[in-house]
């Protein structure tokens, strides 16, 4: 194989990735829609949707990117200018982003984050919306009563006999579990990481005894919970406010002003009602946001076409999920088809690039067996990075959307294809290769006429493995705004809607089975006929 061809194997996928990048970021700055993002829980969806509707009512085009996996991801995207605005909480800004613990009054914390964010990043906090959503450490009322617990100080004594279940975000942050347990000296018997969608269920069923709830999500009254008082004032104030990126603030002052006019208009009762509409009544996010805006006098009436998140209504868990699923998927068929198409695009682009890079690499390694082990191990190391972390690493370089997702999936696909290509080539009838060489076949002839045909089924098996991994991992891409079948999964997890989750998960699973079956067929088709018995 010539040097030129080897280089082509690297250049082509890079070109493919750049082409995707270009399409992802190609729109002109002035006409570009305003990108509104959220974190993966119902209230964040609600507020982002409210921002979007306010902006749209002022005539701006809006690109909704809800459901970012974590504070770090959405904040990074904001810093890069990939996201223009998202709803954030002052206490989160203070503790999770600035890493500070010093609390104070609401006004003091707001002033602190405003000054620090502007100075460090040029990012601005618009005035708070008017309500606070703090963490509420909660227990079943009956359990709290039987232990006579009312405060977190009291919890510290009872904790060794209790199990805690907390959202992943809470477990990972300074103002979360670690800080809390340190501040109060709490040691649980065990702690589990539980998604929002299952946390209340787990508490109600007694699988855990203590959870982190939000003070505004309505679950405290719905599930009859006792909130333990933060008697040492560990949690800072969490006032909700729009967090605005630098370029958006500088270039679109009128749009920023429109959002700023929401300041102080949303009180805790209004937001709790809106949250309950979503989480209890199963109202679409768009409708709940529209009603909220009417309630607070920022809109005239409920728009029938209110642009709801992903165009999907929310289902609550009481309904029979399996019965509701087919009807729901039928209603959403256009959207689902679009998501499947998007999903396939992510998988095919990354897989194609990986084949173009890994196949020549695997072939080249056969000539450099001394470094083969190291290269394959390095590709293996890439695969040990958890999907969501790998996606997060991509954001500083590639921003959000399809490009970072394709690059991450590309990296995941490298190992199975490189390893199988190398193994397939090395193990392809070594005695026939040595005899062929002894009879005057050139290295290229040995490769194209003996090794590649014999290795083809093994290589195809590697491609098949990579493809199936990609179909699954691509669902995570929704966490960084890449779309695909992860969209309904992420939204469903955030909104505790099992039907919505399944409407993404079931097609993803079927897609994986289908891809596996199709490539298994391809695997047997490429096997040389002389070897088939």
């Amino acid at each position, binding site marked *: 194989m010539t040097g030129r061809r080897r280089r082509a194997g690297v250049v082509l996928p890079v070109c493919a990735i750049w082409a995707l990048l270009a399409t992802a970021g190609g729109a002109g700055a002035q006409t570009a829609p305003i990108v509104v993002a959220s974190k993966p829980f119902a209230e964040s969806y609600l507020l982002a949707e409210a921002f979007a509707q306010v902006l749209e009512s002022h005539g701006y085009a809006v690109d909704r990117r809800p459901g970012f996996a974590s504070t770090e991801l959405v904040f990074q995207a904001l810093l890069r200018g990939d996201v223009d605005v998202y709803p954030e909480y002052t206490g989160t800004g203070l503790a999770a982003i600035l890493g500070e613990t010093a609390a104070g009054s609401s006004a003091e914390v707001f002033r602190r984050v405003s000054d620090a964010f502007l100075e460090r990043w040029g990012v601005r906090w618009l005035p708070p919306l008017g309500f606070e959503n703090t963490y509420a450490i909660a227990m079943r009322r009956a359990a709290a009563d039987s232990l006579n617990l009312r405060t977190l100080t009291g919890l510290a004594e009872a904790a060794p006999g209790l199990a805690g279940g907390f959202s992943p975000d809470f477990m990972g942050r300074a103002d979360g579990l670690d800080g809390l347990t340190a501040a109060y000296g709490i040691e649980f018997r065990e702690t589990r990481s539980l998604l929002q969608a299952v946390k209340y269920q787990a508490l109600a069923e007694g699988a855990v005894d203590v959870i982190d709830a939000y003070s505004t999500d309505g679950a405290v009254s719905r599930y009859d919970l006792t909130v333990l008082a933060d008697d040492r004032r560990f949690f800072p104030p969490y006032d909700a406010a729009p967090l605005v990126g630098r370029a958006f603030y500088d270039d679109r002052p009128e749009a920023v002003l429109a959002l700023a006019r929401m300041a102080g208009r949303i009180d805790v009762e209004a937001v709790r009602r809106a949250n309950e509409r979503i989480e209890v009544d199963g109202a679409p996010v768009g409708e709940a946001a529209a009603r909220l805006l009417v309630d607070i006098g920022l809109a005239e009436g409920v728009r029938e076409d209110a642009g709801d998140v992903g165009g999907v209504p929310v289902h609550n868990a009481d309904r029979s999920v399996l019965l509701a699923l087919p009807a729901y998927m039928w209603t959403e068929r256009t959207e689902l088809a679009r998501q499947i198409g998007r999903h396939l695009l992510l998988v095919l682009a990354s897989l194609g690039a990986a084949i173009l890079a890994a196949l020549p690499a695997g072939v080249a390694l056969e000539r450099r067996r001394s470094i083969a082990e190291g290269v394959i191990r390095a590709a293996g190391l890439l695969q040990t990075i958890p999907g969501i972390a790998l996606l997060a690493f991509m954001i500083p370089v590639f921003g959000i959307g399809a490009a970072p997702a394709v690059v991450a999936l590309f990296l995941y696909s490298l190992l199975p294809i490189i390893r199988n290509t190398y193994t397939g080539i090395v193990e392809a009838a070594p005695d026939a290769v040595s005899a062929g060489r*002894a009879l005057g076949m050139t290295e290229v002839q040995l490769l194209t006429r003996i090794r590649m045909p014999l290795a083809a089924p093994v290589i195809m098996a590697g491609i098949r493995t990579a493809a199936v991994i990609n179909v699954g991992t691509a669902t995570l891409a929704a966490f960084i705004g890449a779309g695909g079948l992860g969209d309904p999964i992420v939204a469903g997890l955030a909104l505790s809607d099992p039907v919505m989750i399944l409407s993404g998960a079931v097609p993803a699973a079927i897609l994986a089975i289908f891809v596996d079956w199709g490539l298994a067929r391809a695997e047997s088709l490429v096997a040389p006929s002389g070897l088939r018995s």
Partner: protein
Amino acid sequence: MALIRIERAVKRYGDVLALDHVTLGVDRGACLALVGESGSGKTTLLRTINRLTELDGGHVTVRGRAVDAVDPVRLRRSIGYVQQDGGLIPHWTCLDNAGLVPALLGHNDPAERGRDALHAVGLDPAVFAGRYPRELSGGQRQRVAIARAMAADPDILLMDEPFGALDAITRNEAQQSFAALRESAGVTAVFVTHDLREALRVATRVAVMRAGEIVMESAAGDIVRNATGYAAELLEKSGVAQ
């Protein structure tokens, strides 16, 4: 003048001296057996002739030309080669395997030559042409390998333990038919074996190797009379000398 000439050939693998200043000539039409135990350097020596082994010192000339002055691919296409396991290409038919070298040389009738070669080793092309290697017995596979080595009518044939993997009866037949074929084709052959009886049955000359050196070289017919020292020991071990 010798068709193949090896002079003071040296080959090292790390600290091991695989060939220790070996000098050897093979005349046109001869059949030389390189005999010795494992690790004696006989395969290494064989492979210097078609440059599968590159020397660290000394010279090899074939047909009067130094091999390192010839393109190795062209050199190898002009020399037949058979290895112990046959090394047939598993996804090619017997005919494709047999016609390999004529095809590599760009002959316009590789299939015809492949058929002739199969016929010459006693395999009916009408039966065997379309079969794949896995459909053959070990003896048949080795015959196809010999047909492949001979199909382009090379004047030189190199063989590395060509009958080593065969059972005793098949081996006898193969040795006899090979000896007959070689004589009728008039090819000059060098083959490696650890079996002195086989060497005496097939070869016209025998060279005995030990630790990278040729300890004795003689016409096959005179070896019993000429053998001394290690060569005599080998003869005794293989039950040739009484």
